[in-house]
């Protein structure tokens, strides 16, 4: 225990920086889970694939469309980043809508039990993962040759941004990428909060989350609200995908969504599922817990620590830290 505390103290600011960056990304993905859960009481297991698609679009945007080989600076960089961010968000948003349309809506119209949605989500997730594995230019679907999009191997993504230190706080260097992640994440979360709490559309979402039946009687178009919710969740996951690739410099591959997806879902539950601010809080908290667990227990105990914290929190507060905001 003494070792644990002294190690955390020694690496405190470094690990806080690491945890906040990762946590911000978790929070953005967690929003997709929590909003969909709010309106449909459905764990959208295929949300991790919505995230994965965004990392693939990031690859194409940087490597092929903008032809980035070496880091660029100045206004060119901003153009490239925004030029990549928009297709990422669009692709993820559209995939989320497609998921709702083909994997969930038919079940909803048939009044299927809730677990069927979950299994359908898992099936859709497997389908999408292996679709991307098959899209390597050598496989056929009936008579059509699948295009070469991703394939089974990791594809490195060129980075348009060189890493440089923006400022040093308590001996911890904070890089430009990490600052960018935090700024973009906070900005998007802020905009989302306004959209949900202040606009008509947001009121629709909240009303459906509270009581879908009454909302529909009051003239809310439930199908439209659900599609919008999926789209917003997709957009957030899309932005998260780009930031994830950018800040970590990892290659994209067909399985990339799995771990962030599970962690983000944990974060959503931690904060209180269905609760948008709860998802943000849960994401940041989970990121920090994971970061601090490394100097304390060692890197091999990260997942265990995260889940033990979740269980402990739920034992004290059975509906998450901020409580849930869904119809009982």
């Amino acid at each position: 225990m003494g070792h644990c505390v002294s190690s955390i103290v020694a690496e405190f600011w470094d690990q806080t920086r690491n945890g906040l960056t990762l946590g911000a990304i978790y929070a953005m993905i967690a929003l997709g889970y929590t909003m969909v859960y709010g309106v449909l009481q459905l764990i959208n297991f295929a949300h991790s694939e919505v995230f994965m698609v965004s990392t693939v679009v990031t690859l194409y945007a940087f490597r092929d469309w903008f032809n980035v080989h070496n880091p660029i600076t100045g206004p060119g960089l901003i153009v490239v980043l925004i030029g990549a961010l928009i297709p990422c968000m669009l692709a993820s948003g559209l995939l989320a809508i497609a998921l709702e349309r083909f994997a969930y809506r038919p079940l909803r119209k048939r009044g299927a039990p809730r677990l069927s949605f979950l299994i359908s989500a898992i099936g859709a997730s497997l389908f999408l993962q292996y679709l991307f594995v098959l899209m390597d230019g050598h496989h056929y679907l009936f008579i059509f040759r699948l295009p070469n999009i991703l394939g089974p191997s990791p594809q490195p993504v060129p980075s348009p941004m060189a890493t440089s230190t923006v400022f040093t706080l308590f001996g911890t260097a904070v890089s430009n990428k990490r600052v960018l992640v935090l700024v973009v994440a906070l900005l998007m979360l802020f905009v989302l909060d306004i959209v949900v709490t202040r606009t008509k559309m947001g009121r629709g979402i909240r009303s459906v989350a509270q009581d879908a039946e009454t909302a529909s009687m009051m003239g809310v178009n439930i199908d439209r609200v659900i599609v919008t919710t999926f789209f917003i969740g997709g957009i957030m996951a899309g932005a998260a995908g780009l930031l994830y690739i950018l800040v970590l410099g990892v290659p994209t591959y067909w399985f990339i969504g799995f771990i962030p997806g599970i962690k983000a879902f944990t974060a959503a539950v931690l904060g209180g599922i269905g609760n948008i601010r709860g998802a943000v809080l849960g994401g940041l908290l989970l990121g920090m817990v994971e970061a601090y667990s490394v100097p304390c227990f060692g890197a091999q105990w990260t997942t265990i620590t995260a889940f033990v914290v979740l269980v402990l929190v739920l034992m004290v507060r059975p509906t998450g830290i901020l409580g849930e905001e869904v119809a009982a």
Partner: protein
Amino acid sequence: MSEEGPNQEQEPTEVSVRQTTPRAQPNRWTLMRRDWRDRRLAFLDLRKATYRAAGATVRGWFQPVRQVAQPPRDWIKERRRWTYPLLGALLVIAVGALPYLGTYYVIPLWLQRITDASVLARVALFSLFALGLNVVVGFAGLLDLGYVAFWALGSYTAAILTGARTYSLALQGGNTHVTAPVWNEWMWLIFPAALVVAVIAGIVLGSPTLRLRVDYLAIVTLGFGEIVRELANNMDSFTGGPRGITSIPHPAIQGFGLDIVWGTFLDIKYYWLLLVLVVFWVIAIRLLDDSRIGRAWVAIREDEVAAASMGVPIVRMKLAAFAIGACTGGVGGAVYALQVPFINPPTFALIQSILILSCVVIGGMGSIRGAIFGAAAIVLLPELFRGFLDYRFFVFGAAIVIVMIFRPQGIFPSKRRTAELLGAQHDDQLYDAARAGGSTT
């Protein structure tokens, strides 16, 4: 017998009136009339009772009340009493003999592939897991995404108790002079031990978390599955760490004039062992489902608050479901460890929990034959598609979505659940629960 009460009260008055009449003995018509009157009165009485119990609905009038109506002897029913077990036994023998299909007939390759003893043993193993998870998910309505944890606990308990762990650790330490563990008579105790360990784990996990709602339970159980796997990976001195436990001895029955020794995992006797377990579990779960506990689970699944107010001990019943699911996983895991006979943490990945859950949902939640069918589908489909190696999971994922869209209740929907789902359209849930409970007695 309570319907005789009013009869006895009325009898004296009638007799006193009829004392003057010459007919001391009532004729058979009178007897018959009385008999019908009694029956009608009793019917009305019981109907009222049922009616009250079932809640005030007009439909209660049309409820069949079997105890009074006394239908003619149901020959089909009586024949079922022995035809069903007989047919069942024949079916089990036929299924148990499936691996011999390829030895006596030349069969196409795909059929050969799916009637192989080791593949069928995997089907039986997953059937067992699906039956166990079905109790948790299908009967009690609790979503468990970490079922693999119980499989892992059963496997590790069995492997550690056989002494294989010490042997593997010695091997890893470069000591080649130790001898591999041999199966002893007392080693059959590892099955109850695996069962007990899994049940304890189920209760330890269940007691703090079962008061959470279903979706919170989903993530907590998912976390539990991951925690168990990671612990197995990290506690090197106890579980052998990532290298796992090797050379687990194969089971044997020696003595009592028997000499049955199980060989490597291709041995058909593993399949038979698992098949026996599946049959045992099917019978046990059927009985449970028809018992008070089974009905308590229905009540909890349909409306927890109502069930609690009717006096159903919610937490205890949920724990029972969890423990039964856990012990199934533990026993199956023990057989798995003895069969393979090598276990290491990557085997117990999250995907296994998801596959087992898919068995339950595709087959039909709450349905026993559905669980077995689901297990067969989940294990055999990828085997059939082995020729199209790369397309296996792609097709599998699409198939799951399509099945869910066209049969959201699963391939073999549970009759009881279907009744409830149709009944749920009415507001009076109490009535439906009573009807569902009554139909099985």
